[in-house]
């Protein structure tokens, strides 16, 4: 069981050395003072019964059997600290029983457990008491990040996005982005015989488009598919040169970062006088924007649209046509947690798929009941966690993929794409991975010439 000293699961830029417990408690107290977390901690502390029903729904615990991977236990670590240090009854009991000394060990357990968790929210969906373990994990990570316990990849890339010269998580300079887009335009011209633009900094466009920056580096077909759809439907859109990265790791570990990143993107939309925000194929980016835009936007909230939502609507309105003969292979669909768990984007991708893919095989546990790919919650960016992501976190997804017998799995999310690609290699699965718009790029009939 737990209790033994375990090595840190990831590298940190500035790991706290001495006095971690005191620093943690100080950060926790500060966050409680300046945020609204206290009431929910009070409520969860009172009602949690540790029935452990959630553990049967967590793919991490299913594969590892380790208590630190049990959602109930995971939440109980932070709730225990809260009770012990921030409630009068808990403080009294801790003084009598000497419970204060546990915090050092608790920090180690949280560091491991909270970054094993992919914050997929499946446990929450099946908790009889309605306890949102995902919220507790976020808060735990937030406090840990304030004392320097945060995976180096997350802190470095977020800092580059907020304060670096490139203003994106991959450090992709604007000049290189422009070159890449020119290359994609050329590629579309050669493949489809049509001139399609990736417009940049066009004022008054209907949509300002934000894709995860990794798409501009690794997912050419996804971007070309999206550009072709928008071109064919005659939609005005633009990429913003100031902030073009949709990724928001703040959603995973820090409220302040979450808010700052959203505000930077809103600033760009306002600069260009855009009417709506169009989010690319990325789960957490859409959730952070749709879920928190109104929180951090001090003006009138702009509509947030997921590209799958838009494409589905354009198909329904017959504004784009897809060739039903273009994709003959067996295709399955992976629901990214950040867009499916809430029920936001579940039907739209299936409508798109049914419109042009003849051989579709639904995975078991589809839609809101989906299993995470195993790389959610920012864990896919943490290199040191790869063995865990492959052997534990992604095991269930690999089994699901295998069961479908599909040739291609669609994963409309940058994080899921990376994780599933690695799973396909690790488990030697005979299938390919694609974004939804990768297949649309193959199937779309381009009729507009200008």
């Amino acid at each position, binding site marked *: 069981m737990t209790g033994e000293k375990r090595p840190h699961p990831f590298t940190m830029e500035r790991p706290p050395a001495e006095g971690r417990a005191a620093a943690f408690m100080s950060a926790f107290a500060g966050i409680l003072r*300046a945020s609204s977390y206290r*009431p929910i901690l009070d409520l969860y502390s009172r009602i949690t019964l540790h029935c452990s029903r959630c553990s049967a729904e967590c793919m991490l615990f299913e594969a590892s059997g380790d208590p630190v991977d049990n959602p109930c*236990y995971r939440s*109980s670590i932070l709730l225990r600290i809260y009770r012990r240090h921030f409630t009068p009854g808990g403080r009294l009991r801790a003084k009598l029983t000497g419970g204060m000394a546990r915090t050092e060990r608790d920090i180690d357990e949280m560091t491991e457990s909270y970054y094993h968790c992919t914050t997929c929210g499946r446990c929450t969906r099946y908790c009889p008491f309605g306890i949102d373990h995902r919220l507790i994990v976020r808060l735990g990570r937030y406090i840990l990040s*304030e004392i320097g316990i945060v995976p180096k990849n997350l802190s470095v890339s977020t800092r580059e996005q907020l304060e670096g010269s490139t203003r994106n998580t991959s450090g992709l300079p604007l000049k290189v982005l422009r070159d890449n887009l020119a290359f994609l335009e050329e590629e579309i011209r050669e493949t489809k015989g049509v001139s399609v633009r990736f417009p940049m900094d066009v004022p008054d466009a209907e949509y300002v488009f934000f894709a995860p920056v990794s798409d501009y580096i690794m997912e050419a077909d996804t971007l070309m598919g999206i550009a072709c759809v928008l071109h064919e439907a005659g939609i005005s859109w633009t990429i913003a040169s100031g902030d073009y990265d949709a990724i928001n790791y703040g959603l995973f570990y820090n409220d302040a970062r979450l*808010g700052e990143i959203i505000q930077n993107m809103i600033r760009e939309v306002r600069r260009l006088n855009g009417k709506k925000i169009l989010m690319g194929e990325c789960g957490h980016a859409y959730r952070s924007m749709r*879920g928190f835009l109104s*929180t951090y936007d001090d003006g009138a909230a702009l509509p947030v649209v997921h590209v799958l939502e838009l494409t589905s609507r354009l198909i329904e309105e017959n504004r784009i046509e897809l060739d039903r003969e273009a994709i003959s292979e067996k295709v399955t669909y992976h629901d990214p947690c950040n867009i499916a768990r809430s029920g936001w984007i579940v039907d739209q991708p299936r409508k798109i798929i049914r419109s042009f893919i003849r051989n579709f095989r639904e995975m078991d546990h589809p839609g809101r009941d989906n299993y995470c790919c195993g790389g959610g919650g920012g864990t896919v960016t943490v290199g040191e966690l790869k063995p865990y992501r492959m052997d534990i976190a992604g095991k269930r997804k690999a089994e699901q993929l295998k069961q479908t017998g599909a040739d291609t799995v669609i994963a409309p999310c940058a994080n899921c794409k990376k994780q599933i690609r690695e799973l396909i290699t690790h488990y030697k699965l005979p299938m390919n991975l694609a974004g939804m718009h990768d297949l649309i790029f193959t199937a779309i009939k381009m009729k507009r010439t200008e």
Partner: protein
Amino acid sequence: MNEILDFLTGPGARFSLTILALGAARLLILTAADFVNVVRRAGDKNIEYGEALASTLSWAVPVRHITHTRPLFSAVSFLFHLGLIITPLFLLEHIMLWELGTGYGWAALPGAVADGMTLLVILAGMFLITCRAADRLRRFISTPSHYVLTGLIVTVFASGFLAHQSWNPLTRTPIMIIHTLTGNILLILIPFTRLSHAILFPLARIATACAWHFRAEPPLLSRAVTPGEEPDKK
């Protein structure tokens, strides 16, 4: 002996019920006020109340959730709660006591049904305790209070059941004292222990929906790494 029993079913019960009512009211009012405050301070005040309410109702009678996860455990747990709520409220003897004190009464469960449901609670409670103790994981995340509270419920129901059976080999009055004493303790403990989930359950999902609506200006206490600083090599 009879004086003790009279006290426990009279002033004792009135005291316990008062503590329960006041404790429950305090919990509900403070919790609701807390979350009204959360919404007031939230950057986005549009809470998805409809969905939270639908989810609460769906879990209040969780029949369709039973088969999804650990069906046996879920079904036993559901029956345990069903018996735990229905039986004391609709037991003839309880209604008569209430009627004696207040003049108001209501329809009671037939004796055989009440007996059956009481047995169900006892067996289900013992099953839940056994599950907790026998399973390595659940034992690990359990505290003594988990066992004590379920054990207390089983004791209340077992003593109540035993006292009314003709084959009961023990003297009735001491058993009734155990029943009424543990019953009173249980009522008093509800607002102050994990049993308060019985009171707060209707608020939990709505509160969770509110909790995701953060303040517009989150606290930035420190920067994990200040720009320009040389990070520690590891």
